[in-house]
């Protein structure tokens, strides 16, 4: 099977399905896998998340972006059961998830990864993978005592794990402790391990954080492959180039709210998004033009000898810095 043929179809399907969706926050999708309604979460006086309505299209790659402190990770935690909202309801495949503990959410087919990678250091890479398989007989106490009851299943799990490790180019590391992997390899392992659960939707919390550029392309390819394999992907990311490259739809959060939605190109041009980013600290330039404009402004300031500005010219200009 040529690698390109399915790639275009799945991507085209996702793009086509989302073509007629209005570019407004909370827009209804033709085939939502995940629907959230009126979710709020406060920490003391701070409202971290206050999402009126959001739907995630099945089979598409949806990016969740926003400046630091926008509530993206908190929203992730709420959706996956790792945190409980003050109020609101949300459902996965039409099944309500309020009060469902995280391990049951995962078993239903919604699996997440973490911003700070959680490789299980003192387990081997292969053991990390095997752990991901669900419904293992050997994971029950009494059957665990009788290896003949679970050995066959373990064999199948191992084969699947080896296949995935080969796909993620970690097969040579399979007997190494996961703690000995590099940061990027841990990200790969975490993603591969999540796939062992055989999820319907994969939620990636900053999959590119701390990954060296050489591995970025490979990670991007793997994320795209998830969509080709029929999975839905929701990911949090700061790197705008990556968002533009792989996402079919972008949801923008700021100060806990969804402020914009749309395909990546229209989002980059959205004034409210630009305001949200530039109105506070941000980690990455929005577009190359913006970056150049900001650089030019900073250089201008330097040239004019602004006494208040003592820092070196930054590669990532910070509009939040008073001039």
């Amino acid at each position, binding site marked *: 099977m040529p690698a390109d043929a399915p790639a275009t179809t799945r991507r085209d399907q996702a793009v086509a399905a989302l073509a007629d969706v209005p570019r407004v926050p909370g827009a209804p999708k033709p085939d939502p896998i995940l629907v959230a309604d009126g979710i709020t979460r406060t920490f003391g006086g701070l409202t971290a998340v206050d999402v009126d309505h959001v739907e995630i299209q099945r089979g598409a790659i949806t990016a969740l972006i926003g400046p630091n402190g926008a509530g993206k990770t908190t929203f992730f935690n709420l959706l*996956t059961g790792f945190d409980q909202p003050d109020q609101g309801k949300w459902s996965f495949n039409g099944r309500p998830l309020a009060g469902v503990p*995280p391990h049951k959410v*995962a078993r239903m087919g919604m*699996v*997440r990864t973490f911003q700070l990678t959680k490789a*299980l250091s003192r387990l081997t890479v292969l053991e990390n993978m*095997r*752990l991901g398989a669900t419904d293992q007989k050997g994971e029950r106490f009494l059957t665990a005592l009788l290896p003949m009851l679970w050995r066959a299943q373990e064999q199948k799990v191992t084969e699947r794990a080896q296949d995935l490790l080969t796909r993620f180019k970690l097969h040579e590391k399979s007997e190494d402790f996961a703690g000995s992997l590099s940061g990027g390899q841990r990200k790969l392992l975490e993603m591969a391990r999540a796939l062992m659960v055989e999820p319907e939707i994969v939620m990636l919390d900053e999959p590119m954080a701390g990954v060296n550029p050489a591995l970025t392309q490979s990670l991007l390819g793997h994320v795209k492959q998830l969509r080709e394999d029929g999975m839905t992907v929701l990911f949090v990311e700061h790197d705008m180039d990556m968002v533009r490259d792989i996402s079919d739809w972008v949801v923008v959060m700021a100060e806990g709210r969804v402020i914009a939605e749309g395909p990546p190109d229209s989002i980059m041009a959205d004034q409210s998004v630009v305001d949200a980013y530039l109105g506070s600290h941000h980690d990455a330039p929005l577009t190359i033009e913006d970056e150049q404009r900001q650089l030019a402004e900073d250089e201008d300031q330097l040239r004019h000898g602004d006494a208040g500005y003592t820092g070196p010219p930054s590669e990532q200009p910070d509009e939040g810095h008073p001039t």
Partner: protein
Amino acid sequence: MDWGNILSNSLIAAVGVQAVIYALAAIGLNVHFGYTGLLNFGQAGFLAVAAYGLAASVATWGLPLWVGVVVGLIGAVILALLLGAPTLRLRADYLAIVTIAAAEILRLIARSVTFRKWLGGSDGLNRFADDFFKLNPYSQPEYTFGPLTFSQNDMWTITVGWTLVALTSLVVWTLMRSPWGRVLKAIREDEDAVRSLGKNVYGYKMQSLILGGVLGSFGGFIFAVGNQSVQADNYGTELTFFAYAVLILGGAARILGPIVGSIIFWAALAFTDNFLTQAVAAGVIPTWIMDTQQVGAVRFMLVGLGLMLLMIFRPQGIFGDKREIALDAR
């Protein structure tokens, strides 16, 4: 100085009843701490519940020995449930606080005047092990193996004891090579990651707490029948921390760790004790440094120093894997 005597006493301690008790207590702790990462500082409580369950059933209520064993085991399971239910959803340190307090509460209840009628107060209970020694297949009053001599009763206790050590180690070995054990080890590393993969972390931690408590309770049974008495003050925090010393000395998360740790720990204590006593008596150590009264305390200082040196130069214990310790530092 009689070196033969010093060495034979050390060897007797290495395979004696104490070594069995602490090996069993540490095998339980190994499941908790070594494999699951649960900080149980109340292992003494599990041994106490088992010992008193057995002793009170037989001595106070006149029930048969096997009923006493069942009562002790049920007691250990209930204790694990009571300790785990409120704390296992919380961070690891809460379990540590609750278990150390619970073990002390149990000890104070056992020695209280209020329950003296049933639990014997600070005198404890005795005369409950007769049924156990009726089963004794050893017929001679003494058994000698080279320099080592054991009484008929001790022979029976340590035979049963080391058999229990072997069986429990076999169970732990089987479990830790299974997918069940893999989940426990994964919980030790990062429980949120395990949750995200669809495992009921709370359930596994509870199973681990129960299993380790029950394994420790076997140590309680041996403690009770080996001494043919139970006394509340034998089940203080000291017991728990000795068991931790045994476990870390041997190497946590290793099957042989608690066994070898216990053997070395008790052999080392007996060796320093005998050596110091004889050295003082023979005048090798002058009395202005220490007298025979101080041997008991000094031996702990020396063994403590030895443990410290071991932790500095071999932090993974005797059987541990240095690579694993290196990973911890990240």
